[in-house]
């Protein structure tokens, strides 16, 4: 018989809700108790079925083909270890050796810092996010505050504006990404302001914008326009 308190912990463990210290203690108990291991196994299976409680939706049809294309060029990790003479195995070492010979200590230190940054970016998506403040221009109220959070890798962003007056009849605010690879700004969608003058939305530019230099908000015809025509009211450089 497993005590209720321990069953509570087993449930939270499976749901990933224990802190590091509690996990360590629980895993020590797991090692010693086969009944507890059984319960965790059962809880894991039961919890996973909750995925089926979400309304079932098909993923985009193109994803499978993209994944198959992507894996075509790479072997699973288990096979990479089993191919000692594969080019993919010795080439990085050769490069690393060359770097060791030619790099000064200063450069090595710099690379270390870069590596740490790259690792941090992998761990925390926030590190990959750019924050851009948009400032009022062309007669926009001076108290308008706007901030964009932009993830270039994912091509998604979030904008929040405070203090923006309603767009007016027959007009809409439209957000644009000014990108070095596109002649014209790329539309990132219509921005709707609520009665308190607050607008917030997630956005994705209509086409990929890999080198965004700025974000801008313009006042356009209702429903938006394919190419910016109206005055720029907010602007911020990345």
């Amino acid at each position, binding site marked *: 018989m497993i005590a209720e308190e321990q069953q509570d912990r087993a449930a*939270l463990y499976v749901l990933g809700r224990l802190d590091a210290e509690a996990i360590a203690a629980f895993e020590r108990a797991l090692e010693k108790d086969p009944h507890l291991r059984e319960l965790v196994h059962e809880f894991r*299976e039961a919890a996973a079925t*909750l995925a089926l*409680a979400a309304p079932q939706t098909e993923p985009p049809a193109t994803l499978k083909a993209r994944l198959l294309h992507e894996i075509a060029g790479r072997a699973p990790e*288990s096979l990479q270890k089993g191919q000692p003479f594969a080019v993919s195995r010795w080439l990085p070492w050769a490069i690393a050796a060359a770097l060791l010979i030619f790099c000064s200590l200063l450069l090595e230190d710099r690379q270390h810092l870069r590596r740490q940054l790259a690792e941090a970016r992998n761990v925390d*998506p926030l590190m990959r996010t750019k924050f851009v403040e948009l400032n009022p221009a062309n007669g926009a109220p001076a108290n308008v505050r706007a*901030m964009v*959070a932009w993830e270039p890798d994912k091509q998604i962003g979030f904008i929040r504006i405070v203090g923006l007056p309603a767009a007016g009849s027959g007009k809409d605010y439209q957000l644009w990404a000014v990108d070095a690879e596109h002649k014209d700004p790329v539309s990132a969608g219509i921005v709707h302001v609520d009665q308190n003058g607050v607008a917030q939305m997630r956005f994705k530019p209509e086409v990929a914008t890999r080198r965004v230099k700025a974000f801008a908000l313009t006042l356009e015809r209702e429903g938006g326009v394919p190419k910016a025509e109206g005055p720029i009211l907010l602007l911020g450089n990345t």
Partner: protein
Amino acid sequence: MEETAQQAEDRQCIARIARGDAEAFGTLYDRLSRPLYSMAFKMLGDATEAEDVLQEVFLQIWRRAAKYDPAQSSVFSWAVLLTRSKLIDRLRARQRRLRLVAGSTEDEHIAAPSREASNVEDAADIINKNDEAARVRSVLGSLPAEQRQALEMAFFSDLTHHEIAEKLAQPLGTIKARIRRGLLRLRDGLGYRV
């Protein structure tokens, strides 16, 4: 727990994937992509982000198939919990981002575009008793409402059990007990007991 035919098939698929078999990868994708994507979409509320997560998960399955341990869980559970972990990371990053943006616009009244766990679909949605998803919903539907709510919040959101207790204005011990009892009933209802 006795392995079902489907679980055995999934396990064989994973073993083949670990040997670099792309066809097995395609088979496993066909089997798992729908529930994993559905869960991702429910938790994130954004089709593009859900697709990104699904892609990350399947690439990880391809790379790390050899790490799968059948003693720990079925392939389905392994994949679901792997996906959920990535989803929670995303939700937390989104919250941090939102806090920063909210802070910068000096508005205290910001509300996160929450995708907090909603109630499971109505009984009317349970049409086909042979369908696995319908069976899960049926068992969930039979749980006392407060257990179902606590369990769904713990599974589909990034809230800790402390935050769930606060949100539902219940003592922490009550929330823990509801989650435990909910899981036990789900386990018994689905026949996962050893």
